């Protein structure tokens, strides 16, 4: 920690945002505003889009799919991860398989997901959850596996009940890493849901994106990308802050 340094993190973030805007403006001036929309025009276009009659419906559709997929990914990932982490052999058997699944281009599997789930909500949710669940499982598994034995022995020698052991030893020891997994799971679930919408749906932000890709409406693509980047960055910021506080509190 570099305490005593006078740079405020907020100032730095604002500076970075301004610098990125400047680069964007420069690029769009160089490439021409019809190739890459300028920042100001993009914000205006976004406001116009959001004020449009259909936007609320599309956004609500995406939000619903994302939330359901996220709940499945986090809850399922946590359960599987704890199970695999607690049993050494199961973990060893599963880990390379999970890493393999994590790294294949899952977008190629979309025809299978479509054929199994049909067009619509369930395919989107399945796609989001498939993307998000694996990092949650991997991080939870490692978190549980890496709980130092000494903690458990200390807990036993203090005759903690199972409940006390869980609340006071197991959760605090594994929580920081689990939150890291949640953060990755969050990002990837959003990605998966959007990809699912692009191919498997007639509604939602992803559908708007693929439609404007097909019509070559760069201004809409850039506006939606700005919206998504802002939302995802804000969420990551919150989760990173939480993660840092947990790591600080339960620092080993």
């Amino acid at each position, binding site marked *: 920690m570099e305490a005593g340094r006078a740079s405020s993190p907020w100032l730095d973030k604002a500076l970075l945002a301004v610098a990125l805007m400047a680069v964007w403006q420069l690029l769009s001036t160089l490439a021409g505003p019809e190739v890459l929309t300028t920042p100001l025009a993009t914000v205006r276009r976004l406001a116009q889009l959001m004020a449009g009659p259909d936007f609320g419906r599309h956004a609500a559709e995406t939000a619903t799919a994302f939330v359901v997929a996220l709940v499945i990914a986090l809850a399922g990932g946590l359960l599987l991860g704890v199970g695999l982490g607690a049993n050494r*052999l199961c973990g060893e058997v599963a880990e390379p398989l999970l890493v*393999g699944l994590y790294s294949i281009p899952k977008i190629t599997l979309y025809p299978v997901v479509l054929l199994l789930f049909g067009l619509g909500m369930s395919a989107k949710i399945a796609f989001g959850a498939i993307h998000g669940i694996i990092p949650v499982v991997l991080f939870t598994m490692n978190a549980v596996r890496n709980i130092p034995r000494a903690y458990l022995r200390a807990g036993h020698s203090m005759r903690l009940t199972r409940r006390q052991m869980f609340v006071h030893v197991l959760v605090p020891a594994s929580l920081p890493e689990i939150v890291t997994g949640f953060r990755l799971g969050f990002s990837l679930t959003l990605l998966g849901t959007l990809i699912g919408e692009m191919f498997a749906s007639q509604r939602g932000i*992803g559908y708007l994106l693929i439609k404007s890709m097909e019509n070559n409406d760069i201004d809409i693509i850039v506006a939606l990308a700005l919206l998504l980047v802002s939302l995802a960055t804000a969420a990551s910021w919150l989760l990173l802050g939480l993660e840092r506080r947990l790591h600080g509190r339960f620092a080993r």
Partner: protein
Amino acid sequence: MTRAGRLRVALVGLLVGLLELACRAGWIDPVAVIPPTRMVAGAWRLLASGQYTKDILLTLSNVAIACVLAVASGFAGGWLLYKLPRLRRAADPLLASYYSVPTFIFYPLFIVLFGLNRWPLVAIGFVFAVVAMMLSTLQGFERVPRVLRRTARAMRLSTTQEMIHVVLPACAPHLFTGVKLAIVYAFIGVIAGEFVLSGAGFGFQVAFAYNSFDNPTMYGLMLLLLGFVGGLNMLLYSWERRMYLRRGGR
């Protein structure tokens, strides 16, 4: 092979067998999923016919170019972030959320910029891969043990010597992780791009077979692709494990 390894093979075999049985017995709609043996037959037929060789080579070369570019600039970017901690802290949330936005939505933009050729796809693969390499490089530089740097200084190594003889070897495993991720992400980016809007390549052929209800071809192509990427990954993953183990870490 270890016990876990044997169990893993058995588990995968069991799952594939179950899928075969379920498909043959008609528990799964044959329009949705075909039996694994037919997938393998489809894949073999594709390879033997040579009809898709051009697409496969196109995709592989795109991935390779994207990968090389991403590794080189990701390394430079990671080093820059390491040297500028204020920038790094400010950019943290942005980097963390980078992978939640499907980068290939910028494909039309790249087409306008680069023209209708292989470069838009390379650009997507690059954009997808570069941040992973950057983050791994940064992590590697940050985790070089202080004692090594102090020893280097005590031995009066020049900056270049310190870099070549101390820092780079010390962060080699992390750089390797970065290269591995860059390969994976470049694959994902290029294939996704081909899927969405392209007239050639592996991803395009899968989408084409899907749209024409040609299940044996679709599953055959998928099997080839996932087998190749999965196999490559397993190889890199086991090297990586060995590398980290040799350091006595993890």
